[in-house]
């Protein structure tokens, strides 16, 4: 993992010269070792920034909040916002740029390279360490994580703890940046969609039973939608409660808003919600895995989006988040798009 001393200097300079409003980065969380998002406003706080295998969050999410805040300010401060991004997060920014949700001048991108590693899956770590409580985690020199715990140092090969998305990572270093820390080494990925195989191998009935058992657990806390940088709509079409009401919204408009699904977490309507969200992420999801990590009931949501990502690649040769000048997947077409399923 890149050492981000050079990045910290850049951050201090930016803040001192007032070039950016604030910097979104990773700092040490409440339990003393895992990373949490932090917002640095003053140069002297920059030392609080960390970069280690626990920096799992996709900070691009907070560019959505920044845009909403700016829209409400009477005299908006037009300076860009500094943001620390991994490879996958940078692809999220590319999609936001591609969809004209944010302008390039709004963001000052401080890229960090994961090099030969990535971020740790907290469940894999807990299973590996069992009772031992971790206190710090670093990348060793020859492809292993060094974790010091209350029961002494533990060394584990990187592949055993990496999050699923890192094992299938397509962007070890940011595809877009103003400043980059760490070198541009790629980690070999033999099967980019390997994690899908165990589900695709199941029969149709087995897949149905798998997804029914999983989506039945959903309690509609909408964390998967709230944590996703691509889910930036003010009003979610499939959400029966939230509605963007302005002073001039007419009573009829409010009365006639269609409740596609109800608010109670009834199994079939959980499907409608998650399927619509997955489709709306088709060709936009950059597999940062945050929806699955955030889900309190461990519903494997990543596999819904990963499937559509695979379809977009196989059927239409489209990969999200690499080129912001391309049209979106579903706002373009090719003459030889598959139509075998059409009568």
């Amino acid at each position, binding site marked *: 993992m890149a050492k981000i001393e050079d990045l910290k200097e850049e951050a201090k300079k930016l803040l001192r010269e007032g070039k950016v409003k604030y910097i979104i980065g990773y700092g040490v969380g409440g339990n003393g070792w895992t990373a949490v998002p932090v917002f640095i406003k003053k140069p002297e706080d920059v030392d609080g920034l960390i970069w280690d295998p626990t920096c799992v969050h996709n900070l691009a999410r907070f560019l959505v909040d920044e845009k909403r805040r700016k829209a409400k300010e009477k005299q908006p401060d037009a300076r860009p916002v500094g943001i620390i991004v991994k490879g996958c997060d940078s692809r999220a920014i590319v999609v936001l740029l591609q969809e004209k949700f944010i302008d390039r001048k709004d963001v000052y991108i401080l890229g960090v390279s994961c090099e030969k590693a990535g971020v740790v899956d907290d469940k894999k770590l807990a299973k590996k360490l069992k009772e031992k409580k971790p206190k710090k985690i670093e990348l060793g020199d020859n492809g292993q994580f060094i974790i010091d715990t209350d029961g002494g140092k533990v060394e584990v090969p990187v592949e055993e703890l990496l999050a699923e998305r890192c094992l299938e990572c397509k962007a070890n270093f940011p595809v877009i940046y103003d400043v980059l820390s760490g070198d541009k080494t790629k980690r070999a990925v033999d099967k980019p969609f390997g994690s899908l195989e165990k*589900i*695709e191998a199941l029969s*149709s*009935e*087995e*897949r*149905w*039973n*798998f*997804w*029914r058992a999983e989506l039945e657990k959903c309690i509609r806390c909408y964390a998967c939608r709230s944590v996703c940088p691509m889910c930036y709509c003010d009003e979610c*079409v*499939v959400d029966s409660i939230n509605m963007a009401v302005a002073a001039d919204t007419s009573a009829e408009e409010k009365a006639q808003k269609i409740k*596609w*699904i109800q608010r109670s977490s*009834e*199994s*079939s*309507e959980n*499907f*409608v919600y998650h*399927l*619509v969200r*997955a*489709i709306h992420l*088709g*060709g936009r999801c950059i597999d940062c895995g945050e929806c699955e990590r955030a889900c309190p009931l461990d519903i494997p949501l990543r596999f*819904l989006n990963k*499937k*559509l990502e695979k*379809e*977009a690649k196989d*059927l*239409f040769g489209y990969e999200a988040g690499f080129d912001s000048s391309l049209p979106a*997947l*579903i*706002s373009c*077409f090719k*003459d030889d*798009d*598959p*139509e075998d*399923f*059409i*009568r």
Partner: protein
Amino acid sequence: MAEEFEPKIVAFLCKWCSSAGSDLAGVSRMEYPANVVPIQVMCSGSISPLYVFSAFNKGADGVLVSGCHPGDCHYIKGNFYARRRLKMVKQLLEYIGLEPQRFQMSWVSAAEGTKYTQVIKDFVKELKPLGPQTKLRRTT
């Protein structure tokens, strides 16, 4: 003989072609199963995936989206967009375990009354053995 299962099909028909095709079939007194609840839309490209999922959620046994042949679209590109978007829908529905035959798409022009009836006949024939759609249907 136990009263046979009659599948309920929700068909989104593009106004310019498929809906006109179905009218032609009607005007020419063509015989075809009456299981279809036709919904006329301005273009197959206007079909949001939410309509398809919601139709299944509200109890449809089969959903058909029928639009103009490539090149005939009144809005030039609508059916091309539909082709790509609804292919993703089909793959996703199959991935979660819904019987693939339940969601169909077809090109039916305004002159193809017979093709329209054939599409519906085939669709009903394929749906009958599957029985009622219970997977995405709202139960309470």
